[in-house]
């Protein structure tokens, strides 16, 4: 019997939404205000397999397809951008590369606890002098007997404050500086790894983003993911999935903006009628909804290509670019609909406004996405 995949995805969306409305919606404002990660909710999410979304059941994951994965991230992000960010990064750019590139022993040692949510993962590429230009990282890994010694600084590490395992990108062949880098899985408790104070960010404040410093941090050879010099390949292949995650996250925030705006527009009376009855407001809502639906379709397109193991770099870049700009736009218009009240903390729209912005920045800025798309158009 051929099953309609949409049936499964509808149930997954509903299941996640119910959880998010029950556990995350009530926590989201406080997470933001106190810049606090909700450890208890995260534990519940771990038990429900939110930390092993695309990881097969053999490694303790949920074994979801990419389309379902995108739906999960969207629904979680709709309730809390910061938690959406946590599971997007953990799943797509931390656990997934360990699954894709790890040896069996590494999967047992690192992937299983990640999928169970016992160890939250990070993706440490960004450095003070290496952002969009990822090839200019300065962190080094020097061979030392049967291991490596790592030195360098990583910044803006998502999930940093609560991480158990960290994917560290480091140069292994300094003579080919910038080109030959490798990825190491480094345990947070390893000597020589230090976490800095949580960044005081504009949005996504419930995520414990912090710097990670490596100071003569010695790791055994077993912690090298794949082979030496495979860093670029791992980064590029991982980021395709990561962009679907960030796109879905932006989509969730945009959807939250739309729903909040629809609600507010029907509650707020001015000039003797609901502001929803004014043409200008209706136009705002119609444009928001249309762009959101288009973003959702782009994400569906990229993730279904990924499910069929077909190339999806361009489509992921398009989905990420469009969804994040849609989110920023939806937050801007949504706040405008809310008027003065939208500018206060009495309504969640100001949080969405702050959370949305970073979607245009991390895991490849909008400008970088445009480069990826443009190159793919001309390299035919």
């Amino acid at each position, binding site marked *: 019997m051929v099953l309609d995949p949409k*049936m*499964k995805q509808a*149930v997954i969306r509903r299941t996640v939404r119910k959880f998010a409305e029950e556990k995350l919606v009530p926590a989201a404002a406080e997470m933001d205000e106190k810049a606090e990660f909700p450890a208890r909710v995260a534990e519940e999410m771990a038990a*429900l*397999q*939110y930390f092993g979304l695309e990881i097969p*059941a053999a490694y303790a994951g*949920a*074994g*979801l397809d990419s389309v379902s994965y995108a739906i999960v991230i969207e629904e979680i992000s709709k309730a809390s951008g910061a938690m959406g960010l946590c599971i997007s990064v953990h799943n797509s750019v931390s656990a997934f590369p360990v699954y894709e590139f790890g040896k069996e022993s590494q999967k047992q040692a690192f992937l299983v606890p990640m999928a169970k949510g016992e160890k939250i993962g990070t993706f440490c590429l960004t450095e003070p002098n290496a952002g969009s230009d990822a090839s200019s990282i300065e962190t080094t890994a020097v061979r030392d007997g049967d291991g490596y010694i790592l030195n360098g600084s990583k910044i803006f590490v998502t999930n940093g404050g609560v991480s158990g395992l960290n994917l560290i990108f480091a140069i292994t062949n300094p003579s080919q500086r910038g080109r030959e880098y490798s990825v190491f899985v480094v345990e947070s408790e390893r000597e020589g790894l230090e976490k800095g104070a949580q960044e005081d960010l504009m949005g996504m404040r419930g995520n414990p983003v912090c710097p990670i410093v490596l100071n003569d941090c010695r790791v055994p050879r077993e912690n090298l993911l794949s082979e030496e010099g495979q860093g670029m390949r791992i980064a590029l292949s991982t980021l395709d999935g990561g962009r679907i995650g960030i796109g879905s996250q932006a989509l969730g925030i945009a959807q939250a903006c739309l729903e909040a705006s629809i609600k507010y527009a029907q509650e707020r009376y001015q000039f003797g009628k609901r502001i929803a009855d004014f043409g200008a407001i209706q136009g705002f809502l119609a444009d928001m909804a249309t762009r959101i639906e288009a973003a959702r379709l782009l994400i569906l397109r990229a993730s279904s290509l990924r499910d069929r193991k077909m190339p999806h770099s361009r489509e992921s870049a398009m989905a990420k670019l469009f969804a994040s700009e849609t989110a920023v736009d939806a937050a801007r218009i949504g706040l405008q609909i809310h008027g003065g009240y939208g500018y206060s903390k009495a309504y969640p729209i100001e949080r969405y406004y702050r959370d949305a912005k970073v979607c245009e920045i991390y895991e490849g800025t909008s400008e970088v996405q445009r480069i990826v798309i443009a190159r793919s158009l001309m390299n035919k």
Partner: protein
Amino acid sequence: MNIVVCIKQVPDTPNIRIDRERMTIIRDGVESIINPLDRIALEAALDLKQKEGGKISVLTMGPSQSEEALREALAAGADEAILLTDPGFAGADTLATSKVIASAISRMDPFPDLILCGKQTIDSDTGHVGPQLAEELNLPQVCGVTEIHVEMNALVVKQLSDGFQNTYRVSFPALLTVSQGLNVPRHIPLGDLEQAFLDGRVLRWGLKELDLRPEEVGFSGSATTVVRLYRPPQKRKGEVVSGSSQTLAEHLIAKLVSLSILDEDEAE
């Protein structure tokens, strides 16, 4: 203990639209969920299975798409799912529905020890199917239970009725319908959902498998027909009171007392 849980897929919306020609609820384009009280019945079955062992079968009568609800039940922990589906079942009232479900249950070998249903559904709200099913199967029934225990090879159940709490001791096999408050259904792990849609098995039984005649079921087997279906006009009227805050407060307190929401002592 072998338990059958009867579930129904219902529209997930408070704004139900009505097809005025056919006198039915419009289900197209509306997301469907497991009727919330049926989900509570399933959760009760999962709790009992955890304590007593046995097997849980979930059953629903409906169109092909009801399979979604059954797979969700499999993900929640049911062992077996049966979809009672046949074009001949369409247009059934609660009596004809009970007949089909009863026929399916009586075919089960071994016959279940316990049948659980939600007390009523959020779409049609009749509360008929559970009791009618018990009558069809000639089983003892308790409706609207809020607690279930197994003691000395019998069920001890509590029921709230007309403001009284009743406790019943019921012998097996039996049928219970469950009320809000019996439990809080657990969240389903995502991997279990994936598995239920990937390899979960849903049996399909129709007229042939149940050995039923077309005139016994569906529209022709129904004892009732819906003559008219409409939304009654809302008669709620607001009352606008004006005056100083003192007058307003006094007025409000008097109102609350007259509605027995506040005691006169409290009002003082």
